[in-house]
């Protein structure tokens, strides 16, 4: 804690005697050691918990194992070959793209409206905003279980309501078994995913709305701009940074989302409602190497998304 950036800068200006000391080996050690002292624990934790598992994951994808995890030897590219030969892989990947695009697309669109609504002044706004955070704070797994129970073909409250409305004719019928049919199950799981993603997105956009200077809206009003015109020309462009960040965080969360699908259908029947994250987990039960290969591909996809984002937002220029 001896040297500070401010001090070193001051020493540059000062004449001789100090300058000699600055070059002394002890000070140089201090200059390198001081960041390590403060940041070291964080770097160590990230290294052990985040970076090293990535390495182990890559290594595992080139190894063979028995289903209960005994190492059998190197596998070369066989795990990847087996994975690409899986008859279900194409459907799983397509479903993953649909899952991410639909869930994130609908979430972001609805959040724009919700943020606008909850940015208005009205009595009881604080209380309504608290209600909004429930799905965000609660465990996603437990939310998924609530919907699983509500969709029960015999006694679920959704079917009770639909029966009262005359849409569901008989309880326990194939029609009432929403989670038993892969396509209706997938639609319901997307609804749950949207439901739990909405609070964060809405809050992120609300925070963005609050950074827009009020004067801009007054100027627009003086100029006689319609409210739709004001929204399109002032609100939307200035909301862009918050929107992009919320979009990125949502894409990553939704892509990695496991509890919703696991809680409601376990990815089944078969693999028919699995996304690539769930599929990786299903493979892990018996084919560890192949599951690691799936992880490597999932991981690569996340990296591509993040790199595109950093490029689009020019992150490097902004950190100062």
């Amino acid at each position, binding site marked *: 804690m001896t040297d500070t950036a401010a001090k070193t800068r001051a020493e540059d200006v000062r004449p001789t005697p100090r300058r000699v000391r600055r070059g002394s080996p002890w000070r140089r050690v201090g200059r390198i050691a001081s960041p390590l002292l403060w940041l070291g*624990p964080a770097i160590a934790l990230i290294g052990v918990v985040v970076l090293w598992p990535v390495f182990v994951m890559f290594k595992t994808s080139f190894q063979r194992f028995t289903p209960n995890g005994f190492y059998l030897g190197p596998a070369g590219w066989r795990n990847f070959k087996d994975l690409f030969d899986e008859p279900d892989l194409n459907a799983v990947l397509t479903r993953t793209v649909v899952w991410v695009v639909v869930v994130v697309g609908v979430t972001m669109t609805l959040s724009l409206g919700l943020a606008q609504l909850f940015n208005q002044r009205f009595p009881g706004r604080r209380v309504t905003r608290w209600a909004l955070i429930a799905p965000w704070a609660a465990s996603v797994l437990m939310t998924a279980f609530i919907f699983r129970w509500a969709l029960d073909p015999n006694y679920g409250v959704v079917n009770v309501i639909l029966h009262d409305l005359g849409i569901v004719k008989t309880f326990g019928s194939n029609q009432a078994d929403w989670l038993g049919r892969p396509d209706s199950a997938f639609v319901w799981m997307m609804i749950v995913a949207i439901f739990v993603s909405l609070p964060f997105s809405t809050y992120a956009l609300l925070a963005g709305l609050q950074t827009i200077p009020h004067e801009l809206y007054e100027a627009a009003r003086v100029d006689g701009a319609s409210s739709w015109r004001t929204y399109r020309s002032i609100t939307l462009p200035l909301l862009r940074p918050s929107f992009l960040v919320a979009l990125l965080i949502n894409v990553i969360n939704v892509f990695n989302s496991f509890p919703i699908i696991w809680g409601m259908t376990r990815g089944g029947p078969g693999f028919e409602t699995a996304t690539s994250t769930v599929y990786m987990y299903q493979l892990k039960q018996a084919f560890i190497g192949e599951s690691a290969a799936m992880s490597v591909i999932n991981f690569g996809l996340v990296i591509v998304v993040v790199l595109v984002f950093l490029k689009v937002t020019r992150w490097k220029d902004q950190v100062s």
Partner: protein
Amino acid sequence: MTTAVATSSVPDVTSATSRKRRRRPLTGRTVIVSVAAYLIAIVFLLPYVEMVITALRPPAELQERGYVPQHWDWTNFTSIWKTGFGTNLKVSLQIAGGATVLVLLVALPAAYYTARRKFRGRMLFLLLVLATQMFQPAAMLVGIQRQFVSYGLSPTTSLILVNAGFNLAFAVWILNAYFSSIPSELEEAAMVDGTGRLGALGRITLPLALPGIVTALIFTFIAAWNEFIVALTLSGDATKGPLTVAINNYIGQYSVDWGHLFAGSVIATIPVIILFALIEGKVVGGLTAGSIK
């Protein structure tokens, strides 16, 4: 985040104006906006209301189709402790508490240093932190499992480490924002007055950053409390796992113990929703600061 600290010093002015606004007569527009907002708020709460209702249904009434049960019954909340739920609750408290303490110990110095100093490698460090936020444990599950199994650590210790590592970023961003908003002149003045650097930190900087510290604390706790996929993978025996794993275990192969499942869910979620409401306004800052800056 600068505003978060600054506005707290002038609460009287803002609350006075908002009070004045509230007294204005309600326009038709405000009525429409409020009704829409109340309806949406109810929609967001309904699933959790159904959770509480199901938990309070007598087991015999689970197979009745009334929207609310004919009798309210607390037995699920008393009998759940006989299924070993207490052990799971304790494990969850250990994991979430341990991860929170570890995150604070590690994030405080890192956030303080990056906020106060420009040094070589600062960019690289911040990028590393951002990476932990972008890579979720689900994407590298096989690696985490093989690594922690080979370490031979207990599931609880492993889960403390994993949850701390993946939630470090949030704490670093939010603490960094708070430290940056506290002028270093304040610390220097305290040091001139005779406290050392650590004294200035403890008496000036940390108290001013307290809202940020509390936010980081609650957020990490909740994230670790709710975590599921790593917990499911690392805790071999569900009876010794955290709450999420225990509640998942009420789903049997042929039947589901819905009464205990939802009683457990109520115990696990209601305190967390209330805690989250306390930090509600500050969470977005921690989640997005790394990417926006």
